[in-house]
């Protein structure tokens, strides 16, 4: 007799029993032992059809193909750059994946140097270890000026909002240029420091209160009146 033990959208800890019986299958964040399915991560239960999976609430960024990310060049070698994108492994940016024409044997650090920050797209992920990036695409480039803040990758959807509602509201109020990377790095550039600080504070407020109801209204109010106990 197959039976679901953990309800949809409940929080589970590693080793917690999710379902019993062979009619259910373990998805991501779950595994089978004998007849039963257990969680192997701290997260929310999600049941889709026969699959029982756990959506992680914490942890490092898990790269997926197509994600727009913000990363820092951490190594330059012959023919590729290595980029720190906040996951367990460094991502590769091949010379063929940049928009500039680069001569054979040229010094790659003349184009993208150490510690420079880029907005790039993930094009290929092999078992989360081999991560390939590209700079060919709309809006993909090297970043100049502004500031970078870091948030938990799992909170990114909340910061963007439904169809980008939250982020466009912040952009409108603070008149800042904001790019949210799926890996939790956010680039903010405004006309002046005050606006940048305001945008930063609002985004950090979203991160801290991401679980509350009516968040969009709270943030709207905060943007209009300024954040209490702020700078």
């Amino acid at each position, binding site marked *: 007799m197959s039976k679901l033990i953990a309800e949809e959208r409940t929080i589970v*800890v590693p080793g917690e029993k999710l379902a019993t019986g062979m009619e259910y299958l373990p998805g991501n964040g779950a595994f089978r032992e004998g007849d039963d399915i257990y969680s192997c991560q701290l997260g929310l239960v999600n049941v889709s059809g026969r699959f029982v999976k756990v959506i992680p609430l*914490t942890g490092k960024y898990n790269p997926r193909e197509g994600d727009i990310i913000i990363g820092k060049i951490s190594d330059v070698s012959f023919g590729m750059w290595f980029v720190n994108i906040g996951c*367990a492994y460094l991502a590769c940016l091949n010379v063929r994946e940049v928009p500039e024409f680069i001569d054979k044997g040229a010094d790659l650090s003349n184009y993208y140097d150490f510690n420079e920050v880029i907005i790039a797209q993930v094009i290929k992920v092999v078992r989360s270890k081999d991560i390939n990036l590209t700079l060919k695409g709309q809006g993909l480039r090297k970043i100049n000026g502004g500031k970078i803040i870091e948030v938990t990758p799992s909170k990114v959807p909340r910061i963007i909002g439904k169809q980008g509602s939250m982020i466009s509201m912040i952009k409108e109020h603070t008149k800042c240029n904001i790019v949210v990377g799926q890996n939790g790095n956010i680039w903010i550039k405004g006309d002046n420091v005050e606006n940048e600080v305001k945008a930063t504070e609002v985004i950090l407020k979203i991160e801290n209160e*991401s679980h509350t109801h009516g968040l969009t209204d709270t943030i709207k109010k905060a943007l209009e009146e300024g954040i209490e106990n702020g700078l």
Partner: protein
Amino acid sequence: MAYSKRKDGRKFDELRKISAQVGIIKRADGSAMFQIGDTIAIAAVYGPRELHPRFLQNPEKAVLRCNYDMASFSVTERKKPGPSRRSVEISLVTEKALASVLDLELFPNTVIDVFIQIIQANAGTRCAGISAAAMALAHAGIPMRDMVAAVSVGKVGDKIVIDLDKHEEDFEEGATDIPIALTARNKEVTLLQLDGEVTKDELMQAIKLARKGCEEIHSVQVQALKEVYKEDKDG
């Protein structure tokens, strides 16, 4: 003289007061505090991340690196800071106690760093450290097959007791201290050390007591982990 009554009035099978908190260190990937009586352990987890120097990397699985240390102010007589023979040993056994529940094969060539600090000590520090580290690993989002809880049991005088404090460890007629770590689901032993003398029957009795204690600790761990994201449910 037989050991008839515990100094703090506990029953022989009663743990000290336990409390736990998750997410206490903001810049760490995962962190937790575990307190049992006057013993407080904090644990921070960083990783999985690149391991340097590269010859230490294992292409088959992640390397788990534990570091146990006692703060110099954690004990009555000032402890000389830095690693010692004792802390190196405890770091190693902690590593072994935790490695078996982690899915290290998912992150080859990386390292997972676990730092355990004892900020207040009153016996049972390695057990508190393991309990804290297990929570911190779960908080860091590292795939684990199970949780680990640890407790010390032992023999004081002629009685088998659970969760010895410093007074009992130093009982003048001899005390045996047995730290035990158990996985939550299958109750598999991942750590068992023994310092002193016990008979086989007494040891089996002590392990039985530890099973009961670990269950209690596990429920506190689970509660602390769920507490952090409690409101997310209706978010």
